[in-house]
């Protein structure tokens, strides 16, 4: 019965890594570009190039609308959230600056920061979250120094699914004249975000997770009020504009967008983003659905699976990401059995986040992680709980 309902007879719970399946309109949009449009946007004056340019523009507009941004040119497309975070972090921080981040960061934030610290360019404070992964804004306020340039925070944890109070942290940033950079890789498309009201200066998003676009899509979004010249470009090159000059253009998005864009990917991202934005109940309903699935899974597993040990909350609003393990087995053993014998796809280990696992007390082995999508349902969760119960009782199929 489950086989009819899921793609290829599997249950895909690895949506926090990248979402699957994508809505049909996403693959159709990619196919349409690949077979009917094909050209390089912004480089030539012919019809096909103009059409490609229109797709890219619509994608920018859709992403801008998603985050309450007025100027769509402030959406800079990148190949993933990692590239956007590197652009923001390396672009903003300079010699002698101090930066603040948290113990819940993904390596895409903590590695560039650590690298800059190691090279003696910046000093860095890492604010410890509590055991549930939540940050206390007051601790962040107290860590601010005279030379603090930026605070970089992961909005929603890729390990436990918890959501940080970014509006409050952003307010502290504004009051202190500190740049607020937010990693929205896990939250964009699940948690409503308003770049202005949430006091964000720069955000990074992944197009291929909860926006249901293809892999190879993401972006950096710069708030309307933020002076984008405070960000140095990381890449220099061809933009199709001001080609008579060897200077990099200083207007948006060209300042940061050198090289041919992934238009096939962006076609799909546009379709995915519109799909999410116009879904019944909007993003608010998506957050409710994720929270509901997370709660359902945790409560059911706690009831039925004897040595189920969970690190995510069944109470708080969350992005549908659950970290757990079975005490008697190694996490890789269980992931393997779930995949091979039950067709359940999930991710085990440290999820590119060693500090987050230290914070929740699961380092160095890590945990299993289920990440639910809008297409998952309680029946699939029931099946997974039964599978975990059988594994835990030592009676695999």
């Amino acid at each position: 019965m489950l086989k009819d309902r899921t793609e290829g007879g599997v249950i895909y719970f690895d949506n926090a890594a990248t979402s699957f399946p994508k809505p049909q309109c996403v693959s159709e949009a990619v196919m349409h570009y690949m077979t009917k449009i094909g050209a390089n946007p912004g480089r030539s004056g012919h019809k096909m190039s103009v059409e490609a340019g229109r797709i890219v523009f619509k994608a920018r507009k859709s992403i801008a609308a998603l985050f309450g941004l007025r100027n769509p040119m402030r959406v800079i497309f990148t190949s993933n959230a990692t590239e956007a975070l590197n652009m923001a972090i390396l672009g903003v921080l300079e010699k002698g600056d101090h930066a603040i981040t948290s113990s819940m960061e993904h390596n895409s934030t903590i590695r560039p920061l650590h690298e800059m610290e190691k090279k003696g360019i910046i000093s860095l404070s890492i604010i410890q979250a509590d055991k549930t992964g939540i940050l206390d804004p007051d601790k962040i306020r107290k860590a601010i120094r005279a030379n603090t340039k930026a605070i970089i925070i992961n909005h929603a944890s890729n390990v436990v699914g918890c959501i940080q109070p970014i509006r409050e942290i952003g307010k502290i940033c504004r009051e202190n004249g500190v740049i607020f950079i937010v990693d929205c890789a896990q939250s964009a498309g699940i948690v409503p975000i308003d770049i202005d009201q949430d006091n964000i200066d720069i955000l990074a998003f992944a197009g291929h997770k909860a926006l249901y676009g293809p892999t190879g899509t993401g972006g950096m979004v710069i708030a309307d009020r933020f002076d984008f010249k405070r960000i140095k470009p990381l890449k220099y090159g061809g933009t199709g504009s001001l080609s008579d000059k060897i200077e990099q253009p200083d207007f948006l998005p060209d300042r940061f967008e050198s090289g041919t864009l992934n238009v096939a990917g962006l076609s799909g991202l546009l379709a995915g983003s519109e799909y999410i934005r116009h879904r019944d109940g909007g993003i608010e309903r998506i957050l409710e659905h994720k929270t509901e699935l997370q709660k359902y899974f945790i409560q059911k597993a706690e009831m039925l699976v004897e040595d189920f040990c969970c690190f995510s909350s069944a109470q708080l609003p969350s992005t549908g990401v659950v970290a757990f393990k079975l005490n008697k087995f190694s996490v890789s053993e269980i992931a393997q059995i779930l995949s091979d014998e039950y067709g359940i796809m999930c991710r085990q280990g440290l999820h590119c986040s060693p500090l987050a696992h230290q914070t929740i007390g699961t380092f160095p082995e890590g945990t299993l992680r289920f990440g639910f999508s809008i297409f998952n349902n309680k029946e699939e969760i029931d099946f997974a709980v039964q599978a975990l119960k059988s594994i835990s009782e030592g009676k695999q199929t």
Partner: protein
Amino acid sequence: MKAVILFYSTNQAIWAENELKSHELSCRLISVPRHLSSDCGYCVQIDAEDKEKATDILTANKIEFEKIEIL
């Protein structure tokens, strides 16, 4: 009589086309006429009488453009 709006980049040209259309101004993207030079492959053609209205819309949306030329 027609006029063309020239831009520094095609991103702005497409954005302008989109905004002008949403204000029901008649306009279209065309290649830059030969006697005008612009690196950006195309420009937006409007009716010359809409020049002021178009300027207002572009300014209100902070869409940067190089200049408007009456043809």
